[in-house]
């Protein structure tokens, strides 16, 4: 019996993978490694000196840094909670309404709700700043028309409201994404399943809760994790609406703006790339941790249905 012919080395696999691997390495992995490395160094007398974890000790040990960090993290968590509590349920609701066969003009609604998502942060920040402006904004006038003028306050300028207001602006902008994903998931539920449910007498609301919701849970999981990553990387909206100091009194400071001030400096504060990299590393670890929790604890328990 002849020996099995030696299989030739499959070069094409490497060739096909190379572009993606190279590009990903160059624009993602190297900068990430560079950031992690930068966080272990410190600029002493114009030279980069290896200092181990000293930057992290400063970040957590020195109250000037740690108070800012915890404040930013707390604000970021609140930012995320608002998105989870408002954006995603509304997204699911809108998708459920859109997928209803009796709704007219659903294509129009779908587009209209999705449009803010493709707008630039700069436009969104500027437009909402104007809408909510106590001087020229339409918000005070509109509220006056319905007799609610007394409820109007300069939300973006008040410590207790500013962050929530910005979170809701962000929700307004991004509610289209969960809506689209859930909408797609709802459309992919086969007719047979729905028909079977109807034969069993499950219709209307209970059909949504008992049949459709379990089937779109994996999509909701994906949306949650996208929201989590997006929120903890957020920066643009706060920067455009409130500036790099994230006023008033740092009440809208999130990790992104905190990182920006540390890394690039602001006004007279001179940028410190090493401390900035330390903060960026913490953000990376927080996001990594969140994603791991999701992957290992949530994703594995989600039931998948094969049709």
């Amino acid at each position, binding site marked *: 019996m002849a020996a099995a012919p030696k299989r030739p080395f499959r070069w094409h696999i490497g060739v096909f993978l190379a572009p993606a691997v190279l590009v990903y390495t160059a624009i993602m992995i190297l900068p990430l490694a560079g950031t992690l490395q930068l966080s272990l160094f410190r600029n002493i007398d114009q030279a980069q000196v290896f200092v181990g974890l000293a930057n992290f000790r400063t970040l957590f040990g020195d109250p000037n840094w740690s108070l800012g960090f915890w404040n930013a993290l707390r604000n970021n968590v609140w930012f995320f909670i608002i998105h989870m509590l408002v954006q995603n349920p509304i997204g699911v609701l809108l998708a459920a309404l859109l997928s209803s066969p009796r709704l007219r003009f659903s294509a129009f609604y779908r587009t209209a709700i999705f449009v803010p998502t493709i707008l630039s942060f700069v436009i969104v920040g500027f437009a909402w700043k104007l809408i909510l*402006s*106590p001087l020229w904004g339409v918000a005070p006038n509109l509220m006056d028309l319905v007799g609610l003028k007394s409820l109007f306050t*300069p939300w973006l*300028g008040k410590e207790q409201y500013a962050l929530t207001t910005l979170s809701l602006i962000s929700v307004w902008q991004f509610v289209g994404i969960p809506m689209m994903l859930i909408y797609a998931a709802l459309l992919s539920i086969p007719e047979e399943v729905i028909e079977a449910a109807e034969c069993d007498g499950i219709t209307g609301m209970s059909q949504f809760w008992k049949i459709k919701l379990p089937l779109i849970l994996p999509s909701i999981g994906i949306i949650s994790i996208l929201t989590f990553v997006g929120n903890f990387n957020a920066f643009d909206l706060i920067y455009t609406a409130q500036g790099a100091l994230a006023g*008033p*009194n740092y009440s809208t400071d999130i990790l992104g703006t905190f990182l920006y001030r540390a890394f690039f400096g*602001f006004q*007279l504060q*001179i940028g410190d790339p090493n401390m900035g990299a330390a903060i960026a590393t913490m953000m990376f670890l927080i996001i990594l941790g969140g994603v791991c929790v999701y992957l290992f604890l949530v994703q594995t328990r989600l039931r998948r249905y094969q049709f």
Partner: protein
Amino acid sequence: MTTKLLTALLLGTSILGSAGMAYAQDVTLNIESWRGDDLAIWKDKLIPAFEAKNPGIKVVFAPSAPTEYDAALGAKLAAGSAGDLITCRPFDKSLELFKKGNLADISTLPGMENFSDVAKSAWQTDDGKATFCVPMASVIHGFIYNKDAFDQLGIKVPTTNEEFYAALDKIKADGTYIPMAMGTKDLWEAATMGYQNIGPNYWKGEEGRAALIKGEQKLTDPQWVAPFAELAKWKPYLGDGFEAQTYPDSQNLFTLGRAAIYPAGSWEIGLFNTQAQFKMGAFPPPVQKAGDTCYISDHTDIGMGLNAASKNADAAKTFLSWVASSDFATIYANALPGFFSLNNTPVKMEDPLAQEFVSWRDKCKSTIRSTYQILGRGTPNLENETWVESANVINGTDTPEAAAKKLQDGLDSWYKPAK
């Protein structure tokens, strides 16, 4: 045919080439700057004026975008391709360049004697021994007011605190105008147009600023807390929703004639002149009691230095001496009303509002913003914290004492004054 054309072309280039050689004796100086806005003024007014007096020296003004300037300049200096003349940011950014050896020491440059010590402080080493940039311009703080509104309500220009609040009360009672156009949304308005504007009258300008740097005074001392206490009193005179009012909002409120008083920096003059449809006047920050010495913030903003690696150092020095002269000052100050020459020789300016601002230099003592020199270095940054705390004080979320304590604590954490 083609051969002929080629010959002609070659001939042409050789002539052009030799023409270029004839000009090569001329020295060309390049100016690095972030003031792209001033390009026309340099090209049409300043450079021709200099070249007319100094044949043989050509000057090219080559600005880059303000946000890119520092990084671009750093890269060019490192690569050795930076221009001969460098526009200097005030304080630490330029000091750092000097320490790296990028800026030459020009303490002995002819013309430097035209500037006071305060004017030079922005471009000196901490000990004041070496100066590395020629001061070009400063901005002065004060209040711009709507003259028509003041006349209509019969208000005299206030000189003391008492008169100031009386005027504000009167405007508020009348109700036609918002007494004061200022917001706290952008934070820096509260600090720069508020705290640094009125503060020098309390901490006695340079005296207090120097004592703070030496560590003899603290931000929690009464003279440093008092300006915060005044700011806290401004709250009722600001417009509805001032917490969300941005800097452009304030400018528009005033130029649209809806507000009577605008806590200002002189750089507003150019814009306000083109936008406001009413007569404007200006008054310096009111003093505590009639007869008190007044102090103004006359903040150094822009200067020009010599690239230490310049191959045309002599020509560049000639240019810098001209920048230090009153000729330059006259052209510059008139082209950019509100950016005042720091030259000791008074400059004749056409703009009445600019004249009013600059006239305070004669009767009041000048100082610069307290949080810039030396104290503007560390983390937490005193200047940035002052923005936040000034806004907090006006918003009423911090008491003046608490704000001052936070600033001092932050400063103490990194600043150890030399004993």
